[in-house]
């Protein structure tokens, strides 16, 4: 897994590349929490290059969502592949995040 980061006018964007499972969730958690600790409260996680997620990845997103919510911020997600969206639906995670079909939609909404 790789994580790319960028900042635009609306969001601090983390793009996750590869697979988010128990072997990679720790590195993602470290990055996500360090970004939040640095003062970023509006985050967009770009899933366009994410091929796989397990509950280990979902758990990190939930930890991050709770942390930014306490700061009155939010985490948005974009460009989820259909099989990844299905995991979010099965887990009951879709109401927790603003989910956009594409990166452009997230930026322009």
């Amino acid at each position: 897994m790789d994580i790319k980061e960028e900042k635009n006018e609306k969001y601090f964007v983390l793009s996750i590349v590869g697979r988010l499972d128990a072997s990679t969730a720790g590195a993602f958690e470290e990055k996500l929490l360090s970004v939040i600790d640095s003062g970023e409260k509006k985050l967009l996680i770009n899933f366009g290059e994410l091929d796989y997620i397990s509950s280990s990845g979902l758990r990190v997103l939930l930890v991050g969502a709770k942390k930014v919510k306490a700061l009155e911020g939010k985490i948005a997600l974009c460009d989820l592949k259909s099989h990844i969206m299905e995991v979010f639906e099965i887990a009951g995670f879709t109401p927790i995040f603003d989910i956009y079909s594409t990166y452009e939609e997230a930026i322009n909404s």
Partner: protein
Amino acid sequence: MSEKTKPFEKELIIKSSTDNLSVIRDFAKNAAKESGFSDDEVGKIVLAVDEACTNVIKHAYKYAPEGEMSVKIIYDTSKFSIVISDEGADFDPGLIPEPNLKEYHKQKRIGGLGMFLMKKLMDEVIYREKVNNKNEVILVKYMV
């Protein structure tokens, strides 16, 4: 859809490192494909196997990477079973409560999500404690 495939058994014996989860997923993926499941069903089986093995690594071996675990797949044309066994600490699924999702999201409850997913993804999830000194979890998907 599965009539063409003859019954088979395959076993993967592997160390309890999270780095091995991708090898385990590939093993489950290939066997599920061979059994004739759709891509969607294959994805669900792979995720359930990952969650079960992640639980073994976390709870039975406490992330120690030198433990041994076995992933055995038994396909017999009517059902597809994955038997995951380990020789680590006793695992009592009763100690990990199934999350009430409303409460789960409100509180910082982080355990039990993997097991919740396994039950949603598979037709049956069976725990057997200490058979031949091993803990076992059996995931079953019936062929339709």
